[in-house]
Each structure stands twice: as C-alpha cells, then as structure tokens.
C-alpha cells in the first residue's frame, strides 16, 4: 500500500504550491482560524473538467473472518465524496472525475486504500489490533512494534476514559510500572504518580510528561483526544531525554484527522459522585462519658459532665446548650453529580485532514450550602477542552501539522480553605456548639475552635480560573532528493497558562450562648462582630513556554532484510513563570541534542543506540552539558527458522536487554543556579531609642561549581511472548542505581555553624523490581473475551545519604528503602503496676496501666529513641497491580477492572484517633471505633486495639510504633462498565455509525484490612475530601 501512496503523491493534483515559507505560515493561520474556510479550500481544490460519471460497487469484509462490515466508510481518496456500506457490507458509489483510489475505514480496522481498476472493487479490512505494521510511540518518534527493544508500556486509550476530571487518576493499575496514588477526592484533584517507583530521594522523582512531544501537564489532555499513551521505562527508551529522563517519561500523542468523510463521534455521560467512605465519629453522650472516664484517672471521683448533662445530650431536650452534632451529616450531602459531554469530528482529504474536538466536564461537590445565602459556596468544578489538530500535505514531500488546544477550568469553592473546613469538621466535638442556635444565630465556640459550618456556608466564596492555550506547528520535509529515506522536521510550540483567583471572603456575626437567664431564655455573648458584605481579594499567576525542535531522520531497508534508521534532533525550551519569587521568575531553560541509531537483521536481531547530549542551566558554565548513552539488543526468537515448529503454540518470543545512563537535573530545596551563592534574609534585630526593626541578611547556600546532575545507571532484561495467538505477556526485570543525588550534607557537625547546609550530589540509591503485562483475547463464536493484567513491584534502597552512623547501626537509614517507616515495637498494653515495674523503663513519660508497652530492642534496660527500628513498609506502595476482563457477547459488553496496592503502611496520628489530645475540649472529636475499642478502667483489656485515653499529649502512647501502624494495601473495583451497542442494522437505518449506551462505576468496592477510612487518602487520621465513587450512565454516538 505504501507504493500506492507514493503514486498518489506523485500525481499533480496538489493545489498549494507556496512560494515562500512566510506565505505558508500565513496560510496556516488562515486555515486554523476557520474550519469553514478550510472546507472551501477543499472544495475548490476538487474542481475538475471532466464530466464522465463512473459507478463502482463492491463489498467490504473482515480479512480474518470474511464477515461483512456494516457501516464502513468508503470514499474517493482526496475528495469528500463517499458512501457507507449497507447491512450486507455492500456499497455503490457514483462519481465524476479523475479519481483512481478508494479509501475504506472502519473503527477497529486499518484504513485501506485500493486502486480503482475495475467497476467492482471488493475490499477486505485488516483488524488494526493484529496489524503487523503496528507502531509504538518512542522518544522523538515511533517504531514498528516488532522492533521495539526498550521497555515501553502502553495502554489502550479506552482504558483511560474513566469519568474523572483528571486523567492522572485513571492510571492506577493500567500500566505496568506506574505507581499512582490519589490522595484527595476533591473535584478537580489529580493523582501523584511515578514510574517504577521512587528512584531518588533528591529534588525530583516525578517523570517527564510529553504531550505531542512537548512538556505539558498530563491533566490538560482530554482522554477522548488521546491516540496513544505510553510510558518509557528503561535507559534505551529514555536516554534521548538525557538529563531529564531518569525518572521515566510519559508520552501522549493526540489524535489526527483521518482522510475520509467527516466522522462525528459524540459522548455524553451523567453520573453521581459519592464518597467511598465517610468517617463515623462519637456522639455527644459517648464523648462526655469517655471524657469523664479519662478525667477520673487524674482526679479520682470527679467528673466533667454530670449524669444530668449526659441525659440532655441523649434526649436532645436542649440542643442549644447540649447539642449532639454529627458534623459530617450537617456539612456534607451524600452525593453530588458530574457530567461529561464530548464531541469530535475528523475527516479530510488528501491535502488536509482534521481532528476537531470539544468537551465539557462538570463536577459538583458534597459541600452543603446555606440556602439563605445569595451566593453558592459549594465546590463546583468545570472544565472545557477544545482541540484542533490539522495535518496538511502542502507539497508532495512536505507535511505540516498544526495542533491547537485550549483548556479552560473554573472552580468555585467556599471562602475559607477546604483544608480548614475538613480540619474543623474532624476536630469539632459533637457537644461543643450547635450548628446554629435555635433563634438563627450563627454559633462559634468560646475558645480556640471554629464552627466548620460557618466556614463552609458563611465564608463567602472563591473562584479559580485556569486557562491554558497550547499551540504546536510542525513541518516535516522528505529529503529524498538528497538520499531516499531521509526526512527533516521542525517543530515550534508555545504554550501559555494563566490562573486567576478571586476570593470574596466574609464572616458574619457570631455568637456563643453562655447559658440561660431566669426565664429560660438563652444568654448570648457576641464573639465576632462580623460583616455581611463580602470582601475582595484577587491574585493571578501563570507561565509561558516556548519550544523549538529540529530533527533529521533516516530510514532505509536494504535488501528486505536489514533495516537501518537514524535520528538526530536538537531542541530547546524556555519556560517563564510570572507572579512568583524573583528566582523563580528567571526563565527555566533546557537545551539538548538527541541521537538514535537502530538496526535490525531479518526482523530477528535488533540493536539500537540512543544518546542524549543536553545541558542544564543549574550548573556552572562549561559543566552544563552531559552525554547520556544507552544501548539495547533484542532477539526475536520466534522469527528464527528453527523455532517454526513451536510457533503454533508460542507465536511470539522476544528477548531483550538494555543498559544505559540517564540523568536528572532537578535540585532539591527550590534551589536554582547552584553555581551562584545566594544571600538570604535572616532574623534581624531590634534597637534604637525609638524601636527600629532591622531585617538581617546572610550568606545562604554557598556557591558550588562542582555539582552536576544525578546519574541513573539502568539495566533492563525483558521477555515478550505470545501463546496460541491469544495470550501476550511482557515481563521486565530492572535494576537501577542512582548516583550523585542532591542532598544537604548531613554529616557536618553543628559546631561548624553552617546556617545553610550545603547541597552536594553524593547521594546514592538503588531500585530494583519487575513489571509485567499480560493480555488475552479470544473469540468463542459471538463471545469475545479479553483479560488483561499488570503487575509492578519495586524496592528501593538507600546506599548513601551522607549521614553518619546512628548510635546503633540497626537504626541507620542506609540500606533500607526510601520512605521506610520507623518506630517502636509494641508488645500489648501494660496490665498492672507490677508489670510496669518489672519491664524495661519506658522513658517517654510515666507509663500507667493501659498504656502501650514497648520492646527494649537493644536490651539496655530502657525503652527510648534507640529502640526505634524499621517497622512495616514504606509510605509509597511497593506492589501495584491491576487486572480486569471484558466480555462482549453480541451487542452486550461487560468490563470490570480491579486495581490494588500492597507493601505499604502508614501511621495513624492526629486528634481524631487520639481523643482529648487537643488542649481545647471543643476540638476533640474522634472516631467512634476508638470509643468502642479502647482500653478503659471498666474494661481493662490488655489486647484492646487502642490504648488508654489520656488528656493532653501522651508521650508514651502517641509515638510511632507498631501499635499505630496500619497496612495501607487494598484492592478495589476501580472501574466497571456494562454496555449495549445498538445493532448495526438499526443504526445503519438511522444513518448513524456505532451507537452504544453504557453504565459505569468507579471505585465501586474497596477491600482492605484497614476499615476506618479509605486507605488511599493521605494523613494519619483520614482527614480531607475522601476518594469518590462515581456511577455514570452514558451514550456514545457516531455519525
């Protein structure tokens, strides 16, 4: 087919022959400014003199099964004339003019182009899944899948179309090697993710994300617009990114227009969003009883709350003075809704192809509002995406593409920060104050607390707006006049990002009821004068980026058995941020060269060398540039003649290995230009006959000429195999050693008096693991079953942190994973004073019966900091996996997907799990589970889940220990979808393409040992907007 394409290119129907590049550029702008203009150009381009009518007929079938394909688009190449196949797969097209190629395209099949050499042209389409020419996106280009020997994972884009605001939240479990954690369910929140875990404890461990080759946020891409999504993991795949590639690279490409009649695809979804789990706190009566119990330890025989008062909490007879508030119910509703609508149109002719899309996403929050207020203070997140990707063939050898994208987000929120709202919802005691007084007065405590209801509903509102415009122009030129197979390309991109925020804050008059007068009326004290008018505050920020890239590509097949390709590329980028600190406002610049040579022999033996040579502005002149080489070899055993007998079972077997060096130039501590020393502000002094405050200045970080980037030495061994043409497995074993990690010198004694501990790059760390992907597809008659799974495991280890040995070597951090948790080992609760006396002395305060008993690790007769050892796991999961299947039977499909993490622990901490630790009684709410499962005087259970409660900080009990450590692993039904496709003959009659209706659910079920809150949420007490469960119904329509 390539041959045919070339012929087409030779034909002289290309209209546009610009005289200069300037004219070209003007034309691009003109074209992109209006798609209707563009259509006109197309039409005028197709005017022909001949008036002979021709009719071509034929049938379109599946090349494998011979089944007719209904609704297939057939059109005359380089025109907008086309038809669709009928129920039997037949078509008939009549046209005038000099057209000699027919194109046929259908979802899931490779587009075919057939020369019209007869009046009957039957077309057989090859399923795109099994295409041998399938390509995989690699760094700065693409490769045939068969020849890929680097470690690259990609996923079918449909797996990422989960109904959430940000695509980063859809990655968990989908790609082998991705570690993803979603810490908040707040509308519009994204996820943190790493590739192959965390390989450095230095300044940056996050991967480089490239969208259409440009460094951009992954969350600005609409899932519908994605064509490919890949992650590059090993050295050979990432070396071309040199000093920025060490943490792995994510590559996203967006969809391109496909030649043919306009195809419209629309999708609408509506869903409900509910927290996966809401905390359950104690009620007022439980609160009072437990406080009395604890108070009794300190003041025997005395109580804080009398029985009469507790009775009032229980019977609710005086909700003003004896309230019993469930803050979660008062502030948050059970669910909110989200909706998504998207539409995209693609098509075009020989000269220009287009893909235009728009989408809208909206998500409300569970935040309640006060209907009496004229403003809406709840969180409401809206996102609008627009994209226009144009590809033009402007001369037989010149391709041009213009990708424009605009993302507009708005978010409204309460005037008070959501952190404060959640914080006070968690901490406000149920009996502290009513939501509001019965006479309508807004309440607030007479102490240090705050009423979260006021924060949520009375504090005014804020509006955040984010606007991102992304533009990319690329020109690619075939240089076959120099030598066949040579191409050159240049690419420019400029992105602008703006954020704008308005806060209209207010806090109305607040009251505290001190009691009742003799008539029983409430006596109020005005706590805050307040204001009914909203304040005004505004801020803004943003960034602009300019990127330029020039490349030369060479690709050639010799004698049908040796393939050679080469790439040489230059790029530079400049990023400017505004409304940031002086140092941050200086442009961030990168510059570099990338090169690659690949070779393959008979598609059996593969070899490639990749190299990045690039520089980082952070280092001193003359020491900025480094070379990062990598090499890989591969052997496709299944293509060997000797293997032929086995191919019936093992249809694919590939072995591969790579080694290389990649860099990371991110320095920690917000430090830039490490070769310059900095002067920082410091504590000054006050003096003068009249008071004068003089701010201080001192030498901060010292200049360091010798520092350089982190180096990652990466090894990868991989195997790919396919069984029975149904099961495909990719398995990689990797090991990485990171050297030269930036760190502050921890070995310097304090007497040196260094105020700013200098950064040097001497840290070392290693990271090893495996990642695997398996997928299985099989057709049983009308039943199509697909099973897929990913698994990643990585374990890192600190090798050098420039830290002196601890007093006991077992406490050293070196040799253990980064993020390893440390603490004491608990041994139940003390059962008697005698036991306390006979146990090693615990030095964190005087222990009492019911307090945690710790093991004296070093046997020195006392339990102190020296007995803290590595316990549990790290805070980032070491094991990440996902598995799911999909079944398609006739018109129905069903696809659940599970995702899980393991080898992760966390410590419970904070007021909500440590009753009465806050000095102020009105800020001491805590989980009901703790009320039911603590050691108490009445129930002296030495195996109680929670120790004796205490008033104030209990230095003995509240240390990090195995007692408070919990397993953060979980498996969840991350996503499930049930769909029904309207039968082809029905939609065909309606003149439509495929139509599908579906129901989906996100985060439907979570299985975990830990039950108190969603284990994925951050923090020791589960505080914050919980992850959400989304149940959606959707419709997908194609025209």
């Amino acid at each position, binding site marked *: 087919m390539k041959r045919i394409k070339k012929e087409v290119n030779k034909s002289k129907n290309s209209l546009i022959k610009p*005289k*200069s590049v300037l004219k070209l550029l003007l034309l691009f702008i003109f074209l992109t400014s209006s798609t209707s203009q563009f259509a006109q150009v197309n039409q005028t381009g197709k005017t022909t003199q001949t008036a002979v009518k021709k009719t071509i007929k034929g049938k379109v079938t599946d090349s494998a099964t011979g089944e007719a394909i209904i609704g297939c688009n057939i059109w005359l190449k380089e025109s907008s004339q086309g038809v669709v196949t009928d129920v039997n797969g037949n078509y008939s097209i009549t046209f005038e003019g000099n057209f000699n190629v027919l194109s046929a395209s259908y979802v899931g099949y490779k587009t075919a182009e057939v020369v019209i050499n007869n009046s009957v042209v039957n077309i057989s389409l090859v399923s795109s899944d099994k295409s041998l020419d399938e390509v995989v996106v690699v760094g700065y280009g693409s490769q045939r899948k068969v020849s890929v020997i680097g470690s690259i994972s990609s996923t079918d884009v449909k797996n990422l179309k989960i109904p959430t605001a940000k695509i980063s939240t859809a990655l968990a479990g989908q790609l082998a090697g991705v570690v993803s954690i979603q810490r908040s369910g707040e509308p519009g929140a994204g996820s943190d993710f790493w590739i192959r875990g965390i390989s450095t404890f230095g300044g940056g461990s996050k991967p480089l994300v490239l969208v259409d080759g440009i460094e951009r946020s992954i969350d600005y891409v609409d899932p519908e617009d994605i064509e490919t999504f890949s992650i590059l993991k090993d050295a050979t795949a990432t070396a071309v990114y040199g000093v920025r590639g060490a943490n792995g690279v994510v590559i996203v490409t967006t969809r391109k227009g496909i030649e043919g009649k306009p195809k419209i695809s629309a999708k609408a979804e509506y869903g409900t969003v509910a927290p996966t789990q809401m905390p359950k706190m104690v009620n007022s009566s439980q609160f009072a009883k437990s406080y009395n119990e604890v108070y009794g330890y300190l003041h025997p025989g*005395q109580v804080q709350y009398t029985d009469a008062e507790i009775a009032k909490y229980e019977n609710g007879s005086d909700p003003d003075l004896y309230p019993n508030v469930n803050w979660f119910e008062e502030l948050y509703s059970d669910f909110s809704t989200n909706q998504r609508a998207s539409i995209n149109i693609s098509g075009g002719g020989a000269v220009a192809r287009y893909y235009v899309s728009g989408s809208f996403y909206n998500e409300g929050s569970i935040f309640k509002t006060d209907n009496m207020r004229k403003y809406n203070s709840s969180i409401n997140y809206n996102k609008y995406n627009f994209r226009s990707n144009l590809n033009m063939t402007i*001369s037989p050898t*010149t391709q041009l593409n213009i990708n424009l994208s605009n993302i507009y987000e708005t978010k409204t929120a309460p005037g008070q920060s959501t952190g404060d709202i959640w914080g006070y919802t968690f901490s406000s005691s149920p009996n502290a104050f009513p939501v509001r007084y019965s006479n309508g007065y807004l309440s607030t405590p007479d*102490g240090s607390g705050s009423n979260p209801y006021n924060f949520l509903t009375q504090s005014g509102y804020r509006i955040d707006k984010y606007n991102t415009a992304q533009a990319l122009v690329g020109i690619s*030129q075939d240089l076959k*006049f120099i030598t066949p197979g040579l191409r*050159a390309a240049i690419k420019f991109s400029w992105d602008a990002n703006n954020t704008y925020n308005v806060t209209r804050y207010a806090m109305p008059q607040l009251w505290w009821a001190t009691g009742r007068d003799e008539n029983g009326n409430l006596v109020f004290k005005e706590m805050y004068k307040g204001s009914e008018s909203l304040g005004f505050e505004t801020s803004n920020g943003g960034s602009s980026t300019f990127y*330029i890239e*020039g490349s030369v590509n060479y690709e050639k097949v010799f004698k049908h058995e040796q393939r050679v390709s080469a790439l040489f590329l*230059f790029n530079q980028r400049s990023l400017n941020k505004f409304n940031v600190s*002086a*140092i941050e406002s*200086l*442009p961030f*610049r*990168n*510059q570099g060269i990338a090169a690659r040579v690949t070779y393959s022999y008979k598609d059996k033996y593969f070899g490639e060398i990749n190299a990045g040579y690039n*520089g*980082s502005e952070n280092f001193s*002149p003359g020491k*900025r*540039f480094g070379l990062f080489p990598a090499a890989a070899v591969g052997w496709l055993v299944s293509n060997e003649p000797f293997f032929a007998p086995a191919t019936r079972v093992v249809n694919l077997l590939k072995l591969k290995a790579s080694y290389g060096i990649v860099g990371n130039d991110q320095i920690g501590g917000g430090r830039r230009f490490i070769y*310059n*020393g*900095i*002067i920082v502000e*410091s504590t*000054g*002094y*006050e*003096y*003068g*006959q009249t*008071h*004068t405050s003089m*701010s201080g*200045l001192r*030498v901060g970080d010292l*200049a360091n000429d010798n520092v350089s980037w982190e180096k990652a030495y990466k090894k990868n061994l991989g195997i790919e195999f396919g069984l029975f043409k149904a099961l495909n497995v990719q398995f990689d074993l990797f090991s990485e050693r990171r050297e030269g990690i930036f760190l502050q010198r921890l070995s*310097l004694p*304090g*007497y*040196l*008096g*260094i*105020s700013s501990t*200098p950064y040097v790059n001497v840290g070392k760390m290693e990271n090893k693991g495996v990642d695997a992907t398996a997928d299985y597809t099989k057709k049983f008659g009308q039943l199509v079953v697909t099973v897929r799974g990913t698994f990643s495991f990585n374990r890192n280890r600190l090798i050098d942190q420039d830290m002196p040995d601890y*007093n006991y070597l077992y406490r050293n951090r070196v040799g253990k994973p980064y993020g390893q948790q440390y603490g004491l080992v608990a041994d139940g609760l003390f059962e008697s004073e005698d036991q306390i006396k006979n146990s090693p002395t615990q030095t*964190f*305060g005087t222990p009492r019966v019911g307090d945690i008993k710790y093991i004296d690790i070093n046997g020195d007769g006392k339990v*102190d*900091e020296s007995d803290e050892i590595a316990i549990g796991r790290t805070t980032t999961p070491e094991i990440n996996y996902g598995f799911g299947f999909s079944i398609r039977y006739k018109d129905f499909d069903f696809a659940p997907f599970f995702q899980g993490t393991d080898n992760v622990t966390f410590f419970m901490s904070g007021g909500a799990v440590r009753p009465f630790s806050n*000095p*102020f*009684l009105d800020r001491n709410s805590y989980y009901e589970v703790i009320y039911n499962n603590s050691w108490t005087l009445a129930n002296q259970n030495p195996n109680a889940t929670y120790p004796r409660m205490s*008033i*104030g900080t209990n*230095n003995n009990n509240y240390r990090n220990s195995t007692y408070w450590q919990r397993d953060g692993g979980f498996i969840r039904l991350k996503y499930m979808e049930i769909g029904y496709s309207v039968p082809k003959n029905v939609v065909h009659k309606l003149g439509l393409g495929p139509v599908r209706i579906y129901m989906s659910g996100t985060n439907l079920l979570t299985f975990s040992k830990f039950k108190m809150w969603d284990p994925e949420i951050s923090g020791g007490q589960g505080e914050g907007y919980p992850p959400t469960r989304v149940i959606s119904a959707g419709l997908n329509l194609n025209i």
Partner: protein
Amino acid sequence: MKNIKYFIVILILSMSVSSCDEYLNRQEDQALSEATLFKKRYTTEQYLANVYGFIPTEWNASDEQPWLPASDEADFSFSRAYNNMNNGTWNPANASYSFWDHYYQGIREATYFMTKVETCPELDPDEALTYKAEARFLRAFYYFSLMRQYGPVLILGEDVVPIDGSVDLNRSRTPWEECVKWVSDELDACAAALPAVQPLQRTGLATSGMAKAVKSRLLLYSASQLYNPKPGTTSIYKNYPAIFSTQYDAQKWKAAADAAKAVIDHEGGMYKLYTSEDKDVYKSLLGIYQVRWNSELIFARSTDDSWFQKHAAPRGVTGYGGYGATQNQVDAFAMENGVYPIKGYVNGDALIENQKDILGYAETGLTSYTHPIDKVTSSTYLMYQKREPRFYINVVWNGMVYKQLNVNPNHIVQFYKGGTSGNIGTFDYCTTGYLIRKFSDVGNISPQNGTLRTGATTWPMIRLAEIYLNYAEALCEYDYAGSKNEILTYMNKIRKRAGVPDLEVAYPEVLSSKDVMLDMIRRERRVELCFESLRYFDTRRWQIAEQTDGGNIYGMNVEATKETEATQYWHRRVLEKRVFLPKHYLFPITQSEIDRNKMIEQLLW
C-alpha cells in the same frame, strides 16, 4: 524545491540560534551576592543585624527558651519539651532547646562579618572598627551562652572552619579554664574597642559596658561551686581532669568581684538603679521593665513582641493564662519588714517562720485587702497580704482583680475549676494558682483581636541590680569579713529601691555569719531577678538544683471547684514531683552532634 531550501535554512538557523552554553546562562538579575553584599552600608548593617539576631528571645519563655518553666520559679501549663526536662525523660536524642547549632551559627556569622566589614567603602574606618568590635562582642556572648548551657565547648578562635573536607572535623572540647580565659580576654578587647554609648539610632547595640557585664556573669559563674568546688567537696567533673581543674581557686571569686566592680564603676558609674522621679517604690520597680532604655539597663533588647504578656495574662482578658508562678517562688518573697515567712519545707508542708516576725502571715483565712499597685479592694487570702512590694509586682493570684484598659475593668481572676481563668474544659489552664505579673503593664493592657499589645519595651538581658548581686556574692565568697560593709552597701541599694528595710535591720545575723549573709544574698537574688532567665543557671552553678529542681513543686489546689468548700482551693498542694539527676547540671550534646563529631565528649550524661 525552493521551499525545501528555505526549510533547510530554517532548520540550520534553529539549530544554531545560540551557542549552547550561552543559552543556558542565567538571565541577568543582579542578585545580591557575597561580592556585592559589603559594598553598601545598608546591606552591611543588615548583615550585622543578622549577627545580632542570635541573641536569645527571652520573652518567648515557653517555645524558644526553657529557663523559666524548667526551674523552680515557674510551672507552665503548655505541653512543651520543658516538661521532659522536669520529669527527667530528656536525653541526647530528644533534647529540645539545644542551642548548640544556634550559637555556633552566630559565632560563624560573627567571624565572617569581622573578616568583611572593613571592606565596606561606605563606612568610615572608625565605624567599621566599631561594627567589627560589636560582632566580636556578640561572638564572645554566644560562647558564654553556650558555656552556661554545655560547660566547656569548642573554642574555634578566628577559624572559619572549611567544610570542603580539607580538615578533619572531629574535634574535642576546649578545657573549661581555657574557654573562660579566651572569652574573658575577648570581652576585655571588646570593652576597649566599643563605645560606652551608642548613637541614639543605635541604642541597644553593643557597648563597652555590655562587654564588662557579660564578663562579670562569666567570671561569677566560673567561680561558683559547679566549676570551682569548695575545699571538702567533690567536683562533679572529677572524671574529666583534662577538661576541668578540680582544685578550688579562691582567686576566681576575686576576679568575679573585680569584674562586677568594673561594671559598677564603668564610665564613672554611668549605670544607676532605676527610681522614678517621685521615688515611689512601685513606680520604680515597674519602670525597670516599662521605661525604655532606663538607666539601669546595661544590655537590653527592644521588642514589641507581646508573647510573654499574652501567655502570662489570665484567661478572660484574652490571655492564655499559662505562665504560672510556683508556690515555691511565692514563698520566696519576704514580708513588708524584710523577713522571709517560709524557712523551708518538710514532707510537703511549709516551715513557717516565728509568728511574731512575720506580720500575721497565715495560710488560712481571707480578709478584705487593697492591692498596693492597683488600689482595688477584694477578698484576699492572708498569705498575700503585707508582703514586700516585689511580690505585688511579680504575682497574680486567685481572687485578685485584674485591671485592663477599656474592657471589663474589674475582671476577677479565678483559677479554680470552672473559674474565669481556670479549667473550663481543657487541660490548658494555670496549674499553680499564680500567674507571672512581671513584664506585663497591668491596667494598660488592652485586648485587641485576641492579642495583648503593650507597645515596644526594652527587655532586660543584664541590668545593674544583677551586677550588684554578682558583686555582693563574689565579695562574700572571697572575703566576707573584710567586705561586709561593701556588701551591705550594694544589697541595701537594691532593698531600698524595692521598699524593704536594710538587710542588717531585718537580719542582724548577717553581720556575724557568712552563711547567713550568703543565704540572704541568694534570697535577694531570687526575688529581685525572678523570671529573668537567671534562676535556672543560679541553682545549677550553686549546685543546689537537686533540692530546688529535683523535688516538689507546689501550687494552690486549682482542681477544686467553686461548689466545694472554699478552703479546698486555699490549700498548698504538690502539683509536680520533678526529677533532677547530677547529669542534668549540663545540657547533653545532642546525639546527632555526637554521631557527627566522634571526638566530642558527652559530659555527665
């Protein structure tokens, strides 16, 4: 093909837009650098302010400094690290308030500044020399501050120790006597180089008097029991003969007395005890803290931070009510006639002085009494009546009316449970039944948005009364018989200002007994200088902390409720049993420092 040529031109252009290294150069922003810092007067002065910035913020007596709550004069209600010091659970791994790094940073900054200041072209050579001497003084003061906390330290001299690995960083402590001599010599040099008075806009910055005053403290401390064990006693440092001399040296007292006298005589006696124009006792005593840059202040720091006042003011007047004075300190104040009512304690009970001498002091009963400062009459516990004026300057008690400006002028302080300033559903309440009144301008405090503002004050770091007491103590130790009159002269100057009869009137025994004289000097010091971050160090240098900090801390029974019999509140109770072990005489070097400097010795711990 024409467009292809253009294309190639663009390609080549784009690849050679700039030579590589230049593109990555930092955009010129003329940031302040080490090279330009000392070019200008203002930035040089800012650097000097940075060197000054390491002076302790003594008004932050809970979060930043432990000296009040970790000694027997105070008990604070907050949950902070000083509690670990009091209950004996501190150790090298968890020790807070470890100012080792802090002061060594100050020392390095000072030395660095001294090497640079003379390069500043905008300073007169004389000015530059003064600035340099100021940094030198600060460096000596920081060394002294380290020494009072850690004992012998590492004297680095003029070294700015390189950190590039060129020298071995493992170093051991400098012997105590060498430390004292080095710092003392430095202070002598500073006294010679510094002006006696700074220009008005620089008031409060280092002067020759300050250098002499620090020296007085240093030599007094070094002459005391902890560093100069009396014959017949054993040095607690007996195991470290290389670092400490274990031999008693009476001449150290002489040197201490001379150093104190040098301050008294400085510039013809330029410092004077502050007395108000009308010689009113209360105005005079209050003025020490409220009159800016008064004649008594030798070393003071201007501040508008109301941290101390906020934490010491009772609940109900927007204070936090957490800076509690102990019963032990209340017991230390004399009666109007100068006689101390409490002799000591036995099994938790106070030993009360003979009734005839103490003006009806009693620990039962309430009568109406007019507060001598605030002139408000209220029902007052007998214990608080007819005490010496400094009692009323220093203590807020239960039942007292707390005056404030504008708002609620008659707030009655109640420390019992449920009271206006007591436990109302939180553990964060005054534990002792007393709050510290010193430094607060009661009556002029106006609560604004939850903070108490009193305007800028001059916080005393060293004042003349301390120097008098240093002098009296050193003289008494060195030559009691030959200097009785000299001692009494200075003791009585303090007592006269405080409205207390002369010492030999209240206690004629001082004329015949050195022990009584010494006891009276120490008692006077405890009363006059209470809550000024000195008691902690005094009990340690006298080596009496086992008794003062290793036992009962008393307060009123604040757990009593209003409903119960009133006498339950008026009851001396043990609120805390503190732990003091011999190792606590010095701060431990932190574990992390020991891990980093293998040569440093951990003394006592």
